[in-house]
């Protein structure tokens, strides 16, 4: 006895018809993903730079700051989102609090490590040339620490792009929504498209930052 035709249907990994009909949807999620990443890494950098500079200068701050961020970093994102939901609701604010917090550990640590690596001789020379502490920081130490800070930005960006997919569970728009749709509707195409675009975005962002670094920090070769 022949089985009904619809039972023979095998869900392909990519259904091109679905994809061509859903280009605006996919691009919308991609745009949201990029926006969430840019805000998270931007805000985290704006906070981490001053905190990292102060923590590097004051030995007593360093341990507590890194321990505190380390503890925060250990908390699973889904648990953090769940803890925040009753207070900040479902969606963007809750997502960004978590994403910014996680990016802060990586960035703060790299700011400290980068400033630590500035040779003592260079600082002595700058002092001898009459630099005041703030000018020395801005014109001598930060430029030398910039490659390490840039490396931190790259790691934070790639990590954030991956973490964002989880925010789909709390209703945030991103490529994660395609992965979630793939799960709830048992439909391969959005799952594959969402996963592939998320990985691709991470690599493109990493390459773009590496390229940007060559222009921004020519003294580091």
């Amino acid at each position, binding site marked *: 006895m022949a089985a009904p035709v619809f039972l023979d249907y095998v869900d392909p990994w990519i259904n091109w018809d679905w994809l061509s009909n859903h280009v605006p949807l996919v691009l919308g999620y991609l745009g949201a993903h990029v926006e969430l990443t840019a805000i998270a890494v931007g805000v985290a950098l704006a906070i981490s730079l001053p905190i990292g500079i102060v923590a590097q200068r004051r030995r007593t701050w360093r341990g507590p700051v890194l321990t505190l961020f380390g503890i925060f970093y250990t908390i699973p994102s*889904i648990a953090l989102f769940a803890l925040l939901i009753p207070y900040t609701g479902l969606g963007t604010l809750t997502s960004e609090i978590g994403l910014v917090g996680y990016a802060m550990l990586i960035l703060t640590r790299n700011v400290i490590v980068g400033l630590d690596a500035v040779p003592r001789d260079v600082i002595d020379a700058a002092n001898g040339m009459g630099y005041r502490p703030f000018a020395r920081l801005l014109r001598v130490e930060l430029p030398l620490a910039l490659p390490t800070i840039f490396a931190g930005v790259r790691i934070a960006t790639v990590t954030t792009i*991956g973490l964002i*997919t989880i925010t*789909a569970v709390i209703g945030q728009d991103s490529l994660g929504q395609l992965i979630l749709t*793939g*799960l709830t509707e048992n439909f391969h195409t959005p*799952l594959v498209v969402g996963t592939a675009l998320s990985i691709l975005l991470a*690599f493109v962002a990493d390459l773009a930052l590496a390229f940007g670094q060559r222009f921004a920090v020519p003294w580091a070769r």
Partner: protein
Amino acid sequence: MDILAKVVQWFTDPAHWAGSDGVPTRLAEHLRLSAESVLIGMVIALPIGIVLGHYGRFGNVAINISNVGRAIPSFALLVLSFQVFGLGDAPIIISLTALAIPPMVTNSYVAMREVDPDIKDAARGMGYRELAQILRIEIPLAVPLLMAGIRTSAVQVVATATLAALIAGGGFGRYIIDGLAQFDYTKLMAGAILVAVLALATELGLAALERVLVPRGIRLMSVPATKRVAFKAA
């Protein structure tokens, strides 16, 4: 009633400490899935990282593994694994194992690279053969960072095992996913606290275990765990 008071009430309710949806059962599920994945991952990842780090070649392989590991979203990996392997523990353990590998490869690579070259030369001069040098000199000195890599993996796996509830798995993630689906914020918060405490306990517990197991003399000369390469998958 205040949400925190409700959460306290949730934890003191004996009904939540018994049965198949009770905290002890969910804890056992969460720990079993995580432990199996980390152990399988260790068997695969540690030899790769140790060998790559010892020879010091293929450094870009170790770095690429860490980049790829960061770029692949853990959530996507779980769902893809579920679509390929279906229901059950297998898709969960396969994807958690895959997640456990990059942090251990990268950290064990760095751990072996950072062993003081003078000590390696001394070992060579004393007549150590290569295998004996790896096993008796380099690995002991690399232990703090090797352990840091294992801790990083374990914390990532415990965190991602929470998401296994999305593909019908057990563990503490059940409370979070069910709490979200049922708009039951008390259950959601209770699950979140359990998961956060378990992740912190994993990190601190393994660190304490290391302090007991690693002799003080080794720790003084070894590669510091502050060289740890960070990963955040979930």
